[in-house]
């Protein structure tokens, strides 16, 4: 019996040592950081990617500058999906959005700082099957969005920019 137990535990210990918990390999440039609020976020050593071309003329502009009306949205700004630690640095945030009147996701996303200036943005089109499952009135599977901003702290508000390019809707708020 002793031999059996020794063999069993020896084998398990050996295998366990051989397959210890793994971190991401260095070449992925990914690690997990512990944020101030206690939530952990994946972090990349890469720089913040270039924002979409349509966003570049809007960066730094007041949100309301070219807006004709505000419409209703459902949605959420959920989390910091990735921290870019390269230069320039920034974050990618993620969530979902659904235009209640248009019955479609707003195609573009704007990130606004506390002084209501545009500090980033992104696009919808990511698959989010959980949203129509939870909210039957949402009829698209692609309400997920990503957005980039160089803002690293404080609160940001997220707005959807509707297809007409002039209407916006408030999606949510996120503390970075």
């Amino acid at each position, binding site marked *: 019996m002793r031999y*059996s137990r020794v063999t*069993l535990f020896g084998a398990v210990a050996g*295998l366990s040592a051989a397959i210890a918990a793994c971190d991401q*390999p260095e070449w*992925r440039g990914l690690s997990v950081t512990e944020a101030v609020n206690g939530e952990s976020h994946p972090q990349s050593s890469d720089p913040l990617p270039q924002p*979409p071309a349509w966003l570049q003329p809007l960066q730094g502009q007041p949100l309301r500058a070219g807006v004709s009306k505000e419409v209703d949205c459902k949605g959420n700004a959920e989390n910091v999906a990735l921290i870019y630690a*390269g230069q320039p640095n920034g974050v990618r945030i993620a969530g979902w959005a659904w235009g209640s009147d248009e019955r479609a996701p707003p195609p573009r996303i704007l990130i606004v700082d506390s002084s209501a200036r545009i500090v980033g943005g992104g696009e919808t*089109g*990511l698959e989010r099957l959980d949203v129509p499952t939870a909210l039957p009135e949402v009829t698209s599977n692609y309400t997920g969005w990503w957005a980039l901003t160089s803002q690293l702290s404080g609160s940001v508000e997220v707005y959807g920019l509707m297809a007409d390019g002039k209407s916006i809707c408030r999606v949510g708020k996120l503390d970075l």
Partner: protein
Amino acid sequence: MTNTAAAADERAIVVGEAHWLSSAVLGALATFVVCFPAWPGHFGYDPLYAYRTSITGIENMVWPPVHAYMFWLSRHLGLGAGGLFAAQVFILFFSAALSLGLLLRRRALAIGAAVGFFGLFILVPPLFGVAMSQWRDVPTGSFAMLAVCLWLCASAQRDLRFVVGAAIALGISVSLRYNAFPLFALIAPLIVAQPFLGCAVSWRERGAAALALVLCLGLAVASVQWRLPDLKRVDAANTKFTIQLFDLLGVSACSNESFVPRQLTGGVTLSGAQVRELYDPRHAQLAYGPHAGVPELNLTVPQTERIIDQAWRKAIPTHLGCYFAHRNIVFVEQLGMEKHHLFYPVHGAIDPNEFGLKLAHPRLSAALTAYVVEASRQLWRRPFWLYAFAAAATLTLLARRDPRWVLCLAVLAGAYGNVALLYLIGPAADARYIFPSNVLCAFIIALAGGIVMERIATPHAGGRARSTLGGIRQVESGR
């Protein structure tokens, strides 16, 4: 019985009477616990596609169509989608309980081991999470378990009809996934060599077993060539390019040099950072769709498959180090060895569908889904431990010269064969892909636990036999 005969009995696998009733009760209880909260089973894209084609007919062979036939059968028996769900879960737990009863000397120990087998589904939550779904990985595992069970029944009854049943179950399991055969890499030859474990077997009986296996495996292969009911040949679907593109992204991310063909990125050569933005070792398809700061991959350009194949042939042989680095990290994700997360341990819902399929108990399903997701974060509850403990258990039985090591080794080889093939061809690290091999490992662990208890209860039972294949034999008594 003489002393010599008694000693010989101690050296043999006890393939005894089948505990049909207690196994059925245990199987039914486990089925209720798994199925009730998730009724009629979680449906993601793949099972919904199979369900749809069970109504509209088979259009292609991207996925083996037997899963769709199962849905068809379930619907035509008036059981709807839930009938298949309950059946696959019941087959899994009933087969495991019956097999454990056939291999352990005492009924109480067999029941304890069967409860332990179910307990592993709670302890290793991805097992439970996947079992709650209609993914084809579940019936693949269920029929693999049934094949082992029927083989043991054949040994207990010395009845070739059970061997034929084992061959049919094996064929069904293989027909459900393109990569399922390694599950039987040693089991199938062993069924031919020893159709009745431990008994003297004639060449005629071996021939019959071989014929049954060849026929059933042949039917499994035919099922992905010709569709039912019109027996029209359907061209094999080429899904190889998905794996090749996954490899190209992995090698590019690792080497900081893009090998992704420019035809797929609108003529743009991606930077290392852009490839890393696209690449996610959890799933090849996570590279598709919009990504921050990266042109979207266009997989509709003419001759996409040829372009990717050429790029793969050029890049992989010259970057083998990065290829294996990429494959390693996919494997790490697949087996749950990544420190911070386990990918996709449960689907947790029924995706929007046109069939009116809805969860019967959404709150209960959500609670269990949350449990699976949360518990899967704990490293000690990840699937890789099943492989470690199953190997340790088999080695221990071998060291103890317990004749049941042969069966355990055959089952273990199947489990390791499954993950070994996935290492090379896996397009994703979904926890479900290794469900069938997880089940086989859980079975070995439950059996080993039963054997340990058996030794504690009867210290001289089981023996330190010098076992060979021929040394495994059926005994009628000693239970």
